[in-house]
């Protein structure tokens, strides 16, 4: 497959004969590795520095992301950093943008942000690669928040040490993700690295850098990346607008008698922040919520296919569902994600 490397050597005839024999014998001479510095220059413009909530109790308020469309869709990890109305992103050239959270898939722990820009350099996901054990990789991220303004994010090198499923035993890894992962020997498990890009030595996208994960049995920190192939369907859905919170959709019709939190028996935490995460504070006895398995401290993530990143978004989304229709919820309880359906009312209330 690879062409023999051309060299300026002495043209001894037995050398030529040797090359012909090598080709015949299927002995392939690999193309020399691309110059990493130029690969880095190619990738850096696609990297994004993400800033949001946090900054307290040792939880840093920054993470990494990368562009997946020319008009400003940024793939990053789903984390507390995004729990704010004011997500700021800074591109490689130092331009700052306020970003909007347009979708997320908490099972995969990814989120997509959108900034108002165009003609940006991005990772073309039709070019992405799948890696094997021993594949040489580069990990791009803003770990430790070293880069600010127009400074480029950092790059680490390493190999894929293993390709495996994250340990699904309960409580071992605090993550709802249970799929395949690349385990790396590059130390990507560092503050702010999550959401960064894993590429091969040609700069082709292979995965997203995972969040800081500690194996609670061995007390070791895992350097891992989720392969991009695992994420592509979800990314496509989000880019197609499937999980965008409804508040942006002006044309939808509101039913005369929609569901409400109180009719379902839900009391949410006090909505005091700009974007209060929709945690359930209390559940009324004998209510639909209690009967169908919801519990206090559950976090409501999706109503139907719609992301509800705040109490307000949740209330709003319920307002589009008629009382007689069922409600499908995706909730997070601890590290687990659960699907819970609340039935519609059999008799419409007057």
């Amino acid at each position, binding site marked *: 497959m690879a062409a023999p490397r051309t060299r300026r050597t002495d043209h001894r005839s037995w050398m030529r004969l*040797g090359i012909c024999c090598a080709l015949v014998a299927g002995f392939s001479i690999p193309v020399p590795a691309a110059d990493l510095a130029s*690969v880095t220059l190619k990738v850096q413009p696609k990297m994004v520095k993400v800033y949001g909530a946090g900054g307290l109790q040792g939880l840093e308020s920054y993470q990494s992301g990368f562009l997946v469309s020319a008009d400003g869709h940024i793939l990053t990890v789903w984390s507390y950093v995004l729990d704010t109305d004011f997500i700021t992103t800074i591109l490689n050239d130092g331009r700052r943008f306020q970003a909007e959270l347009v979708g997320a898939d908490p099972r995969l722990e990814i989120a997509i942000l959108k900034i108002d820009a165009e003609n940006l350099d991005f990772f073309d996901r039709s070019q992405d690669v799948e890696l094997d054990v021993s594949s040489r990789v580069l990990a791009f991220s803003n770990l430790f928040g070293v880069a600010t303004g127009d*400074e480029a994010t950092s790059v680490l090198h390493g190999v894929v040490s293993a390709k495996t499923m994250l340990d699904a035993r309960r409580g071992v890894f605090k993550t709802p993700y249970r799929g395949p992962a690349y385990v790396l020997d590059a130390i990507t498990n560092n503050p702010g690295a999550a959401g960064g890009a894993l590429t091969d030595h040609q700069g082709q996208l292979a995965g997203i850098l995972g969040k800081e994960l500690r194996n609670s049995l061995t007390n070791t*920190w895992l350097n891992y990346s989720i392969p991009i192939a695992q994420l592509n369907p979800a990314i496509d859905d989000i880019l197609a607008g499937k999980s965008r919170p409804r508040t942006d959709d002006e044309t939808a019709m509101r039913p005369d008698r929609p569901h409400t939190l109180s009719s379902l028996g839900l009391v949410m935490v006090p909505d005091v922040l700009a974007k209060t995460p929709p945690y359930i504070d209390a559940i009324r006895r004998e209510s639909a919520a209690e009967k169908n398995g919801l519990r206090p401290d559950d976090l409501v993530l999706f109503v139907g296919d719609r992301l509800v990143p705040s109490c307000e978004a949740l209330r709003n989304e319920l307002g589009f569902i008629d009382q007689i229709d069922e409600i499908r919820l995706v909730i997070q309880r601890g590290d687990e994600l659960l699907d819970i359906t609340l039935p519609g009312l059999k008799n419409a209330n007057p």
Partner: protein
Amino acid sequence: MTRPTTLLCAGLAVAFAGFTPAQGQQVSPAVKSAEQVRIAAIARAKSSAVCVFARGGRGGGSGVVVTPDGYALTNFHVVKPAGASMKCSMSDGQLYDAVIVGVDPVGDVALIKMLGRDDFPAAEIADSDQVRVGDWCFAIGNPFLLATDFQPTVTFGVVSGIHRYQYPAGTLLEYADCIQTDASINPGNSGGPLFNAQGQLIGINGRGSFEKRGRVNVGVGYAISINQIQHFMGYLRSGRIVDHATLGATVTTNENGKVIVSNILQSSDAYRRGLRFGDELISFAGRRISTVNGFKNVLGIYPRGWRVPISFLHEGEQIDTHVRLSGVHSTEELISQIQQTPKADPKPGEDPPGPPGRPAAPKAVKPAPEVAKLLEMRRGYANFYFNRLNRDRVWSRLTEEMDCSKFQGTWKLFGQIDQLGDLEFSLGDDQSQANMPQGIVVLDAENDLDTQLGPRGSGGLLVALHLWRHLLVKGPGEFGEVYYLGTTPMMGRTGLHDTLIGTHRVIEVRFMFDPEEGRMVGLEMYPDLGADPCEILFEDFRPVGDQMLPHTLQVRQGDLLYGTIELKNYEMSEKQAP
């Protein structure tokens, strides 16, 4: 390049002989060749790497030899607990004595000198501005003090970032413009070299980002760039405790992303050059400035006292000028920093998880006589011996061509100034005089010199020449306090110049010497350190008797060229007039 060809042929011959891949490891010749190149680069580089051991087991770190006579670089925080002398091992298995030369506590650099050889293997120094993110690099040092056999540890990685700025972390250490790498940097690597793939020195390792796992490498290490250190080399050789530069102004980013002045000291040179609050900074020391960090990065690599170009926008107009950089810290602050006993200062290089049974604090050990010869402790200096050494070196180099010590009498200089007319200077011990086209200026050396700054507009030309003669006649021993500053750039000339600073009563004079020929090519006379000095550039050296003397003097003060003096004649008498 015959070796890879040979390997290729050998590989092919084996393949042709029917050896199938399934029977064993096939290593591509390209890989083998790359491996050989890497091994050779590391072997070359390793020979200059040093393991630094503080006396009595008080810690240690790494270093690298940069000259064959034994000058070596390391971190300030490595030598701080060691005191003035220490032991260093090299990969040849030998242990050498070393003494402190100069320190830069802010930049965390120290220069030491190893004793016992004049042919130490020295690192080849590269241009760290050529380093690119993604380049391979390697660190050599003594992490975890593993080098009990004196063989240092080599760790390999990529350059993860360049021009990185690291905030001072509760100390006065500020890592500006550093190289970030994922080559493992651990406690003990401090002070050691970072090499590029060719085995050339690009930085000195000294810091890392650490978090939940404690002080062990997590893929983020920082090296001080060798270009920064090159700016300081002359200063470090001077045996002093050196300080970094400040502009006398602070900057911030405005809402348009421009870097503008947010605060400025009226006493600063920048203010005298026209910089004001709200002005936009365009470039500094030749580098375009687009962020505050970018500005701090450039500022952080220069020593106090240098003069660098600056461009800024003032009320829509671009001003290109040069600015003198003053110091960040007072002398007292710096001295107190290095005279502090080391506390729990978490830095790689101190307190590594070392072997058990470390010896108890030892009794004070007197250095051996050959080491003691190179130590001269004086307040304000890391090692005054080296200051005297360089001051005397510069002076004896000058006096090879220009020894005026016998001309104790009056000097008369005849010439003209621009197109304005003839002039005559008469310089003596007690009195000097300038007969200018505009009039006569007299200097009475008994009175305060800083109140006699004629001719008008020159900033004190007569005082400057008076003190110039005074130094040349009396020498640095009797001028007043004369010390070696280091090397500095000079406006109108290329390269770095040896600089002496002399203080005569209240006046400070800077004397600059050409590094190639040793001539005194300039001076700056400061009657007031808060104002522009009188500057003289000496050019057109011609023989007068057996002396080489300047025949063109360019005189400036601030932004103004006072005039160019062409001298036709010198009359220098040997005896004092009765």
